[in-house]
């Protein structure tokens, strides 16, 4: 029974950790889109070759200053 004196604080620690982890997830938008990831996992299997980085095309006559 004495092992409880170690296990109980340990379980409380884990509990606090779990709550913290969940709160972190909520704050980081992890609960905002619950539909997308379910589909997304089906996609990313094997692209023949990773797409190359390419420069963006500027739309015609862009003369506004950049930030």
């Amino acid at each position, binding site marked *: *029974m004495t092992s*409880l004196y170690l296990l*109980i604080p340990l*379980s*409380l620690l884990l*509990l606090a950790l*779990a*709550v913290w982890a*969940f*709160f972190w997830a*909520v*704050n980081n938008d992890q*609960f*905002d*889109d*619950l*539909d*997308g990831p379910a*589909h*997304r996992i*089906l*996609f*990313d299997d094997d*692209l*023949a*070759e*990773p*797409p*190359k*980085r*390419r*420069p*963006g*095309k*500027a*739309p*015609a*006559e*862009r*003369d*506004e*200053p*950049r*930030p």
Partner: protein
Amino acid sequence: MTEPCYHCGAPVPAGAPWTITLDGAAKPLCCPGCEAVAHAIVEGGLESYYRYRTELSPRPADDHAKAETWSAFDHPELQAQFVHPRESDVSATLAVENITCAACAWLIEHHLNALEGVTGSAVNLTEHRLWISWDPAILAPSQIFAELAAIGYEAIPFEPDRALARQQREARMLVRRLIVAAVGMMQVVMFSIPLYVAGPTELGDNFFALFHWLSLMLTTPVVAFSAWPFFRTAANALAHRRLTMEVPVALSLGLAYSASVYAVLNGQGDVYFDSIAMFTFFLLFSRYIEARTRRAGGNALSRALPAAALRLDDDGAQRVVPASHLRPDARILVKPGATVPADGIIEQGESSLIESMLTGEFLPVTRRPGGRVIGGSQNVENALTVRVTHAGRESTIASVLDLTDRASANRPRLARLADAMAHRFVLRLLLVTLCVATAWLFIDPDRAFWVTLSVLVVTCPCALALAAPTALATGHTELYRRGVLITRADALEALAGVTRVVFDKTGTLTRGEMHLAATQPLGALSEPRARQIAAAIEAHSEHPIASAFRPFLEPALTACDVVRHPSQGLSATLDGERWRLGRAAFAANDAITPPGPGQWLLLSRQGADGAFAPGAWFRLEDTLRDDAADTVANLQALGIDVELLSGDERAPVEELANTLGIATWQARATPEEKLARIQALQADGERVLMVGDGINDVPVLAGANVSLAMNGAIDLAQTRADALLLSPRLTRIVEALLLARATRRVMRQNIAWSVAYNGLALPLAALGLVPPWLAALGMSLSSLVVVGNALRLKRGPRGKCQHLPAHHWEPA
């Protein structure tokens, strides 16, 4: 019929030169727009998109006028509104249109991530939003918008309004409360099990006290944080001298908690921490499920009005300013193809405007100086100088959207009924509990407290309170998923009882897209030649009529010097000859009459004497929707009568009715006649669903038991309709009716179940046969049964995504 466009599924014009090569096989495409998008996708190495997609891609919009709007987003003042600086880069959230399935999210992310300067991107599939971060030194926002347009998606900066931000904050708070309750409950029950399992002497006094103190410690945050909303709402209700379902909840939680704390401090008596934690968790869980089924994104205002405007200042300069900065009396320039940024009066210029945002009418209307323009409408032909009268929140379109919000804020009749019921129910419940408590004080004062507590907990009318809302919320979400948006709270219930569907217009069964039904050459011009010439001229027009001629476009034949005459027609030069195409009076300068009923256009050629001689007649007709026949047949198979009430001429209505197998129809019906007909049907006990485009028939729509407006444009009339069909597919009406019936069935089951449960549990608890923990479990289970039953609606009659075999390809 030839193979449909590989990208968007539209019919491909004969001899069209546009193709995309996939796995060595050339696939036909219907237009240069689709070709550009398909090539951008494949050249980016993202052709797997076509393998992943479960819905056809939308046809890309003509975007030559858009490039200018995008460059406005580079303007520092406008950027400040939606671009948020981060440590080494900047980020923004965009609302993206045309996302049809998960493959779109994949395509967008991969396409953008391959772009130099993009540091991260994530698509939220639920709310159709894109979060993107980029290096401002390499990329300008306009380039991102251009890249999205290149693969066929239209994006605008997303700015959540206050209501939406609050809704999101509340949703997150609920998740946090739920998590605390869940974790607390698990651990409290863990500490309670030894107390239940161990015999009276097996557990030492030390451990007994320890477990009690631990339970107290863990339950306190559950009560103080997770259960807080119940206490607050209960106090609120009592302050207004009302009894809601939260009152007994707060009462039982408060009583049980104080009694348990008292027991722990005194070292004797029963503790109910496990019951408290479980009760809280299950209540919150039901609420969470209910809230999730109800959540829907909204960014409608910023979608309706453009973000930037071109302001004409007094010094004669044109300045790009955020549309939200416009004030009444400012003068703005609206270029052809651009969207009007605010309500106003035309000072200079004459042009056609498409006001479908407001009216649902896709045919442009002509406006002259002194005429009013409405923010959100699209300018078709000529530049206009407009003096602003109402901008931003004051604009017409904003008030329309307010209307929609108000409609969705109304509670359905059943929910109001449930509220009223809850008040009486709770009152009786509290009286019964009081009687039980008094009785037990005489029978056995030791057991009086927990029996009272059990009665209070077990009879909590949560299941009853959840019975209707969960079913309705799930029904609404599931309908929305299928493209039917309910705007009036009672509409779902009314849909379930429908016995007759009345199509209000021929236009509801057709696509609103013109096609060429007949060509009648006059004189030497051959039929195909006449069509080609007309197609070449109309290729320069964005008028809906132009789409009728698109299939006959001959790439070698081009018209030049095209002049648009608003509401009249077009004139152009082809092979050195001057042609006109449009209304008879315009094309031939002559009172020539069309050869028959219907909508006719005249093509004419300028002769040597300068007069235009008629060349050919074209009759235009609306295209029947692909699934119109199926829909009518399915409705009839469900035992629902189908009727067509149209204001159109007799001949086309009769033909349409015969084609679709509609036995009851009426042509040339005025709105008064339509309303009278509906009232006659209702007098016979029929319940009528009116399907219309909802524009000029507001009284008719209002007269029906339930009304459904077609097509996705947001407009005033649609907000009067009880439901909107956002999907272009008519068969969704059948699905909506089936789902409404299923929802009603589930709602009745739920109410029956919760009444039966309470009827059974109350006497058992009053007799002292139910300990509090069992009461908490029973109450929670009854609520979960109700929620679970409602969730069954999610598994509708058909799957979410349907694969499209005709457009599906496998890699070699």
